[in-house]
């Protein structure tokens, strides 16, 4: 099968899947495509988007590839999705960070770290599919334990849990400026993109 045709199918698969599609899965479906070649093919598609001046990018998140709109058009998309904009309060962000690093974790443990009630926040995170119930802890009372979801990785653009920023060691006095740990879109070297490169700090 010709490369152009493979590209066509890979793009269609990523577009239609919505959810991240892994390289292995793509290689399985697309004839004569090797898993090791998927990244290169996807990079070509992303470069095409750039050359054609389209506001689309393919990201590698949650263990797969996903088509996303470019941050530069976010203001228009927010108008479209006005009621859906994903806003997270400080309480929600702190709670999700604790769950992410300490999973599986009980509500009482979250409460101990934050020093405040965690029930309502956990509930809302479960509602939004950022956190899930992962079972019970086998201790008296069998409390529920919580863990993060694939959607959590997707929302924060993480490839896998290990891509979370490093949690500062208690002994360290200064946090390492480690925002670069976030997986960037497969825009390749963001230097090529210039002003349109998504830069977390600018986006509010």
């Amino acid at each position, binding site marked *: 099968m010709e490369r152009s045709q493979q590209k066509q199918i890979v793009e269609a698969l*990523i*577009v*239609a899947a*919505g959810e991240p599609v892994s390289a292995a899965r793509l290689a399985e479906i697309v004839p004569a495509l090797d898993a090791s070649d998927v990244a290169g093919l996807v990079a070509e598609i992303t470069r095409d988007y750039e050359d054609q001046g389209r506001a*689309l990018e393919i*990201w590698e*998140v949650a263990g797969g590839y*996903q*088509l*996303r*709109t*470019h*941050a530069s058009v*976010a203001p228009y*998309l*927010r108008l479209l*999705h006005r*009621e*859906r*904009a*994903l*806003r*997270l*309060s*400080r*309480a929600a*962000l*702190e709670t*999700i*960070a604790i769950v992410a*690093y300490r999973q599986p974790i009980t509500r009482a443990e979250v409460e*101990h*770290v*934050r*020093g*405040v*009630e965690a029930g*309502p926040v956990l509930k*809302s995170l479960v*509602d*939004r599919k950022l956190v*899930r*119930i992962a079972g019970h802890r086998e201790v008296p009372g069998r409390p529920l334990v919580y863990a993060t979801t694939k959607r959590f990785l*997707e*929302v*924060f*653009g993480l490839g896998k849990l290990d891509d*979370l*920023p490093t*949690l*500062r060691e*208690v002994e360290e*006095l200064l*946090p390492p400026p480690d*925002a670069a740990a*976030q997986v960037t*879109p497969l825009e390749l070297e963001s230097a090529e993109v210039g002003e349109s490169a*998504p830069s*977390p700090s600018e*986006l509010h």
Partner: protein
Amino acid sequence: MLESGTPLAVGSVAGPTCAIKLSLFEGPLDLLLHLIRENEMDVTELPVAQIAGQYIEYLNLMEELQLDVAAEYLVMAATLAWIKSRMLLPPSENDDDEEGLDPRAELIARLLEYERFKEVSEQLGEYTREGRDVFKARVPESASTPEGERELEVSLMTLLDAFRRVLARVPTGPGLHEVEGELVTVYERMLAIMDAIGAEGGSLEFEQLFASDPEARLSRPLVVATFLALLELVRVAALRVYQGLREDGAPEGPIRLRRTEEGAEEWRRRIADDPRVHGVKSQEGV
């Protein structure tokens, strides 16, 4: 409960030594960290006497402003008072088990732990976020997928939540194994739902499906059949299910059922054409 938000504009409070910049805190630990920072101290130094005083002033201020002081803040005030009293005592040999331990140790450890997560959550908050900064492609499954193969995008949990909430209200009567007396079919329930929606002018709350039934007849088999009928109606596109979305995108509020616009004849045809309904019909003779 205190929610984070915009700082409350209070410049200072009475007293020459304390000018507390008051914002709404995430909890007692957050407030303590704030006070420590204000005093340009290090967490590990934790000047309890000084901080405890400011902490109490803050609580008093909140009360003056008639803000609810959550119980956690009061517990922390008590903890601070206890630590303060312990620190005033000379090291005593009576306290066998805690000998030599800095009474502040546990609180310091908690503060450090909380601070780490606070920092990392701030970092996460600045990450490019799907649904805020970038938006994923959302394309419906290709029209080439036959209707029967099309799958419903809903988690087991979502569905069970709704289903089991209703089941919970039903008295635990005869189990599945003993319902011979009452044969409820999904087909009957499909028609009943459409009738109920019709009676309400085309739209109905999920809960009403079960509330509208004469109380005594709300049995588990009936609830189960009604729920399955609802799913079936969605499948044949005789009705759609909606729920409100909160500003942040979380589903909220009652689940609503709405009849699609094709009218009664069309959905009757669809129900009749549903192969699964035929299976039910043939059972009716049994």
